[in-house]
C-alpha cells in the first residue's frame, strides 16, 4: 500500500509537471543550461591554465631548474657552478626526468655598425636544449645550432624573430657580441646568424640569442662553468615531487644542497666557495605565473558562484510563479483532504524531478560540448585578428584544448540538483499554508 502510494505520489508529481509542459520545460531548461555552461567553462579554464603553464614552462623554463642557491636569489653572472657528466647522469636517473640542458646566461650588446641591441645571450648545448624545450622546432628561418660547434668556422647564433628584425639581419649575416665578462673584462666575438626562432615567448623572440655553450663560456670567461640546468619532467602535476627527488639524488651524489634561495653579500663572498645548489619547480621559478594560475582558479570560482546564483534565482522565480498560478489547484487538493504535509512533499518532489531532469540534461549537453572541444580544440581566433595570440608573454595557438575531469561534470550537476530542490522549499511552504476555501473562491 505504502509503495503504491509512493508510486502514485511520484506519478502525480510527474503528471503535474507534464500538465504544463512549457513551464516545466523552461525551468528544467534553465537548470540544464546552467549546468552545461558550468561544465563547459570549467573545462575551458582548466585547458587554458594548462596551456599557459605548459607554454611558459616548456618554451623557456623547463619544469624544474637547478642553480647555485645565491644565483636563485640574484642572477649575477659570476654565480656559476661546475657540471660534470656524472651529475647530468644522476639527474637523468631520477624518475619522470625526461631531459636536462645546461645553460649559460650573459647580457651584452649584439649588433653591427648600423644597429645594436641589448641582448640576452643564452649558451646552450645544441643537442640537449631541444630535448627540454621546443626551441629547435620553433626555427622559422635557417636552422638550429649545429650539433657540434665548428672549430674553424664562424661561431653560430640563433636569434629571436623580433631581435633579428630590429637588428635588420638575415640568416648568414654577421653580428658582433660585445659584453663585460664575469671577471669584469670586455669580451667580444663575431657570430654568423644560423637561424631565427619564433616561439611566441616575448623574452625569447624580442631579446634572446642562442649560442653554443662553449662559445658563451669563452665570451663570458666562465671557465667551463654553468649558470643553470633546465629539466623537463614527464608531467606537470607532480613537479614538486620530482624537484624533491632531484634534491635528494644530488645530495647523495655529494653535492651541497640548499632548500631556499641564499642571500649572499657580494662583499663577503668568496667566489670559489662551495655555495650549495638549489632545485626549484616552475611554480617557484615563475611565481607570477603561478599566482596568475591561482588567481585564475579563484576568479573562476567567483564565476561559478555567479552562475549558481542566477540559476537559483530563476528557479525560485519559476517555482513561485507556478505556485501562484496553481493556488486554486492546491486549494482544491487541500479541500478534498490532502494533508498540508503531503502537499508540501508533492511540490518539493515536483521541483526535485525538474532539477534532476534539468541537471542530467545539462550534464549531458555540457559534457558533449566540452569533450568535443577537448578533442578538436576551441577556436580562439574569433577573439584575435588571426594568428596566435599571446598572454603574459606566452603564445597560445588558435585552439585551446579543454580539459574534462569527472569532478568537472559531477560537481555542477550535484550542486544544481541540491540547489534546485532547495529552491522549491519556499513555494512548497506557501502551498501548504493556503486557506482552501478562500483560495478556491478566488478571494486570496
Amino acid at each position, binding site marked *: 500500500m505504502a509503495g503504491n502510494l509512493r508510486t502514485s505520489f511520484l506519478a502525480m508529481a510527474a503528471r503535474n509537471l507534464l500538465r504544463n509542459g512549457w513551464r516545466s520545460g523552461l525551468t528544467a531548461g534553465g537548470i540544464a543550461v546552467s549546468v552545461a555552461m558550468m561544465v563547459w567553462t570549467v573545462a575551458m579554464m582548466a585547458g587554458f591554465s594548462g596551456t599557459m603553464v605548459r607554454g611558459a614552462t616548456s618554451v623557456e623554463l623547463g619544469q624544474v631548474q637547478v642553480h647555485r642557491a645565491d644565483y636563485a636569489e640574484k642572477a649575477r653572472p659570476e654565480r656559476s657552478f661546475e657540471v660534470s657528466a656524472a651529475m647530468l647522469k644522476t639527474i637523468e636517473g631520477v624518475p619522470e626526468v625526461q631531459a636536462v640542458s645546461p645553460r649559460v646566461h650573459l647580457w651584452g650588446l649584439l*649588433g*653591427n655598425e648600423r*644597429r645594436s641591441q641589448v641582448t640576452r645571450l643564452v649558451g646552450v648545448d645544441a643537442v640537449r636544449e631541444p630535448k627540454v624545450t621546443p626551441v629547435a622546432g620553433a626555427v622559422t628561418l635557417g636552422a638550429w645550432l649545429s650539433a657540434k660547434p665548428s672549430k674553424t668556422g664562424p661561431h653560430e647564433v640563433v636569434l629571436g624573430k623580433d631581435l633579428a628584425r630590429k637588428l635588420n639581419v638575415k640568416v648568414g649575416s654577421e653580428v658582433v657580441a660585445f659584453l663585460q665578462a664575469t671577471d669584469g*673584462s*670586455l669580451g667580444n666575438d*663575431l657570430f654568423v646568424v644560423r637561424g631565427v626562432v619564433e616561439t611566441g615567448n616575448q623574452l625569447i623572440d624580442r631579446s634572446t640569442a642562442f649560442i653554443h655553450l662553449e662559445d658563451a663560456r669563452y665570451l663570458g670567461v666562465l671557465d667551463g662553468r654553468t649558470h643553470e640546468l633546465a629539466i623537463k619532467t614527464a608531467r606537470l602535476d607532480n613537479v614538486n615531487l620530482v624537484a624533491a627527488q632531484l634534491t635528494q639524488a644530488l645530495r647523495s651524489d655529494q653535492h651541497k644542497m640548499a632548500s631556499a634561495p641564499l642571500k649572499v653579500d*657580494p662583499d663577503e663572498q668568496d667566489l670559489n666557495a662551495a655555495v650549495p645548489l638549489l632545485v626549484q619547480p616552475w611554480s617557484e621559478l615563475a611565481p607570477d605565473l603561478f599566482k596568475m594560475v591561482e588567481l585564475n582558479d579563484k576568479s573562476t570560482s567567483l564565476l561559478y558562484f555567479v552562475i549558481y546564483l542566477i540559476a537559483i534565482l530563476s528557479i525560485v522565480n519559476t517555482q513561485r510563479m507556478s505556485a501562484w498560478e496553481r493556488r486554486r489547484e492546491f486549494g482544491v487538493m487541500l479541500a478534498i483532504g490532502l494533508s498540508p504535509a503531503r502537499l508540501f512533499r508533492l511540490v518539493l518532489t515536483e521541483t526535485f524531478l525538474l532539477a534532476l531532469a534539468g541537471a542530467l540534461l545539462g550534464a549531458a549537453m555540457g559534457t558533449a560540448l566540452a569533450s568535443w572541444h577537448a578533442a578538436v580544440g576551441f577556436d580562439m581566433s574569433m577573439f584575435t585578428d588571426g594568428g596566435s595570440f599571446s598572454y603574459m608573454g606566452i603564445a597560445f595557438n588558435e585552439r585551446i584544448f579543454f580539459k574534462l575531469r569527472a569532478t568537472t561534470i559531477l560537481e555542477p550537476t550535484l550542486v544544481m540538483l541540491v540547489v534546485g530542490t532547495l529552491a522549491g522549499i519556499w513555494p512548497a511552504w506557501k502551498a501548504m499554508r493556503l486557506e482552501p476555501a478562500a483560495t478556491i473562491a478566488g478571494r486570496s
Partner: protein
Amino acid sequence: MTRHSLATLLCLILAVGSVFLSQTTHAAEPPLPTNKQVLAQLDDLYRSKSSHATMTMNVVKRRSTRTLTMEMWTRGQDQALVVIRKPTREAGTATLKNKEELYNYAPRADRLIRIPSGLLGSSWMGSHFSNDDLIRDTSWDKDYTTQLTWKMAGATRVLLARMKPKPGAPVVYTLVLFTMHATHFTPIRSEFYDRGKLVRTMTYDDVKLISGRRIPHRMVLVPANKPKERTEMIYERFELDVVVPESTFSKRGLRRAAKR
C-alpha cells in the same frame, strides 16, 4: 673684578675682534671673475683643437679592481678615439666617437658595433663613467646658467660655481656644483645632482702645466649610491694641440690605431 671675569672679558674682546677681522677679510674679497672667464676654461679643460694622451684607468668595484691602460686622441669637440692597450686580453678594444655617433670596436671580431642612443647612460668599458660622459657635447658655458660665489674651504678661498641646466639643454643632471681654484679656475671637485639627490662626485688633482694650461692629471669618480666603488683616471702623458689627422677617426684609422 675677579680674575675670572677678567678672563671672560678678554675672551669677549677677542671674539668681537675676530668677527670684525673676518668681516674685513670679507670686504677685501677680490672681485668675482666673469662667468665667461671661468666657463670657457672649464669647457676647454680636456678639449682643444686636438690632443693625444696615454692614461691609466682604475675601476674599483666591490669585488674586483681592474686596471686598464688606454691611449686617446681627440680632435675638436666631436671626435675622439680611445684604444685599450692593456691588459692583453682586452688590448685593441676601442671606442670611437665621430660626430653624433658612438661605436665600440671589437678586436676579436674586427668589427665596429654601434652603441644605440638608449645606452648612452650606461657604463663605458665597465667603468663608472657613462658612454654619455664620453660623447657629451654640452658646454658649461652655453647649456648652463651659472652663479659664481667665493667660499672658504678651511684657510683657502675657492670659487664655487652653481650650475643649473638651461631649459631644453641635453643634460641629465639638474644641478652641478663645481669647486674651483680661486685664481686659475682649475676644478677641485664637482658634484652632480639629479632632482636634489647627489648622483656622483668627482675630484680633480695632480695639476700639471701643459702647453701653458693647468690640467688636473687625476680624476676620481665616486658614484653616490656605491661609496665604496670608484673609477680613477690618471693621465700618464698629455699633449695638447698636436697633429691628429682627421683620418684617425675613420674605420681604417681606428683599425690602424687599435692594432698597433
